[in-house]
Structure formats: C-alpha cells, structure tokens
C-alpha cells in the first residue's frame, strides 16, 4: 500500500472511531442518571467529535476528492465506515455505556500517545492534542467501573453484564492485521488493575467479533447513521 493510502486508512479509522462514539454518547444528553454525569458524557462526546473533525478533515485532504469532515460524516453509507465494532454498540444501561468507555478510552489513550510521536506531522499534531483530553475520559470511566463494581449488588450485577456484553469486541482493537497488537500488554495491565480495585473478575474469554475495519458492521451502526445523517439525507446540502 502506498504511504498516502496507509495514512488515509489511519485517519479514517481514527476519525470514524471518534465520530461514532461521540454520536453514541450524545444520545445520553438529558437522560443520564444525574446532572454531573450528563455533563460528563456530553463533554466526552464533544471531545470525540472534535477529534473526529480533525481526523476526517485530514482524511478528506489526503483523499483529494474535495470532501471535508462533514461530507465524510454525513454522505457515506454504512459499508464505507471504518470504525471498530466496539464504538457502535448500543448504550444499554449506564453500566454498559461505562464498560464501553472504559475499554475504549484506555486503548485510545495508549494509541494516541503513539500517534503523538508519529513522524507524520499532521497526524501527530492531532494525536498530541487528543491525548490530553482522552486521559480525562479514561480516568472518568475507570472511576465509575470501581464505583459500580464495588457498589451495591444491583450496580455490581449491571457492571458485570455491561463488561460481558462489550468484551467480545476487544480483540478487534488488537487484531494482528488491522489492529494494534503491540499495545495489548499495557492495556491488559491497566484493565486488570482497575478490575482488581473494583473487586471484579476479568470477563470470560469470548470469541472476538471483528470486521468493522473492513466495513462489516453490526446492525446497530445503520440505525445510528439513520439518525445522525437524517437531516443531510432529507435536505441535501442544508446549512445552518
């Protein structure tokens, strides 16, 4: 693959991961269990949408088809999205949302740290900016895993169920072909430390679901896109 193509793939994946999770988190706006959590989830979603804008603008620039971040977000269909399956999973209850954020943000922080040190200046500039924000997301999610896992019987049951639901989408992040296998040991260590603090056992190994990076998505992504893209589909080119 030519260097430009590799860069385009990276920018699309990073942008789509952030865009889809940002959209998912925005579904919580006005529905979170308490005001502070509502603000937190909206803030995290906003950070992710900001990162997505930068990565997708870069992808559009490399692609050279006169598409900016908005065009890539609103005018592509489900098969063209390159996000991992984890970020498109439904919010479920609050514990399931926290499980997804915990697994993702801890991975994204390690990944973005590497990208910040990458030789490509446009990519590394976004990475260096994003890594500072993601550190907050990882800490927020990890604290809630401990609070719920080591909380009441009800919160613990839900936290275990949430992690169990999300666990099968972890392997895709570290897939030898499309993922970041070198980050696995450090990620495993982080996850294990928080799980021990939360008095939780690691979820049982599951056969990993993969395919998001090749455009093979779960049914959930199509539903998410119908909502996210509705306005541009109904009124193409509409502007504020």
């Amino acid at each position, binding site marked *: 693959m030519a260097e430009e193509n590799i860069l385009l793939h990276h920018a699309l994946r990073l942008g789509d991961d952030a865009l889809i999770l*940002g959209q998912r988190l925005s579904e919580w706006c006005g529905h979170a269990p308490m005001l*502070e959590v509502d*603000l*937190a989830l*909206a*803030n*995290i979603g*906003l*950070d*992710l*949408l*900001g*990162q997505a*804008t*930068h990565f997708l603008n870069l992808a559009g620039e490399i692609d050279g088809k006169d598409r900016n971040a908005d065009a890539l977000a609103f005018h592509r269909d489900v098969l063209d999205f390159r996000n991992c399956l984890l970020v498109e999973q439904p919010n479920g209850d609050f514990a399931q949302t926290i499980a997804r954020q915990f697994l993702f943000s801890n991975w994204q922080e390690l990944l973005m740290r590497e990208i910040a040190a990458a030789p490509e*200046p446009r990519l*590394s*500039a*976004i990475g*260096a*900016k*994003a890594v*500072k*924000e993601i*550190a*907050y997301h990882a*800490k*927020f999610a990890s604290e809630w895993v401990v609070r719920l896992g080591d909380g009441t019987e009800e919160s613990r049951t839900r936290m275990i169920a949430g992690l169990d639901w999300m666990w099968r989408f972890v392997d895709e992040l570290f897939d030898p072909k499309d993922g970041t296998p070198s980050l696995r040991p450090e990620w495993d260590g982080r996850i294990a430390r928080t799980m021990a603090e939360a008095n939780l056992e690691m979820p049982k190994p599951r056969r990993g679901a993969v395919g998001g990076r090749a455009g093979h998505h779960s049914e959930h992504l199509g539903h998410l896109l119908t909502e996210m893209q509705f306005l541009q589909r109904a009124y193409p080119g509409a502007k504020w």
Partner: protein
Amino acid sequence: MSAIAELSLKDRIFEILSQVPDPEIPCISVVDLGIVRDVRGQTLVITPTYTGCPATIAIEHDIRAALTRAGLSHIKIETTLSPPWTTDWISDEGRAKLRDYGIAPPKKGAAKHSLRETPTECPRCGSLHTEEISRFGSTPCKALHRCLDCREPFDRFKCH
C-alpha cells in the same frame, strides 16, 4: 518588509485582540487565554483550546470582526494544533481576572500533571478546604468544585 514594521504589526494585532473577550468566559481576552499565538508576515496564527470546544468557531469569527474593524481585513487567520494549547499559556493577568470572576485559575506549570489532584483554592474566600463535585463542567475547560468553608460552589479552570 523590515523587521521593525513586522514587529509593530504583531504588536498592533495583539493590542487589538486583547480587547476581544472569550465568548464563554468574557472576563478574559483571547490573548490572555493564550489562543493567539503569533503573527507571521500577514498571517495570524491561533490555536484551539479543546478540539471539540464549540467556542472555537465563535472566537475565529470575533477575531475576524475585530481585525476588519481595525482596517486589517487582509490578514489571514491560520489555525494550528501544534504545539497543543496548554493552560500554562494563560497570562498572569488572565489568571487574576479569572479569580476575580469567580473561577479558580489553573496553577502555572501544573499542566504536565493535569490528572494529579492538587488542592484548589476557593476564588471567593481563599480556603484550600475544597472538593471536586465533577471533573466535567459547563464548558470543556472547567470542572465543578465546592468550598467546604464558605460553602459556595465554584468553577475551576482545569489544568491542561
């Protein structure tokens, strides 16, 4: 263009922009906040605070309007991400203005340890006997705190 002429253009632009308030925290100017980075030739370089901060677009709009009013509509505005914005770039004057406005300013030089909890001083009574209510507040750059002595809730500008 001579070095002296360039220097004076930069000074002039910084002077103009020191009158442009941040749209979310109007007590402080975009220069105090460290968003205005440099003037290179006829190009003004600015940087966003947080990648998703909705104020970024409003700020660029306000800067453009201020330049136009000053007869500098030919100046280009360029947004750069690198090096990433840090709260260490907030001026001492900016920190004082934030405190007067009721927002606990970030400690200078603390950005490297942004996740380490350090006692935050209540902007109202000066007590260090305070606690965090939520790490995420009304804007991406602020956290919610409360003073355990004077009992007032307050915003803290996050070290970043």
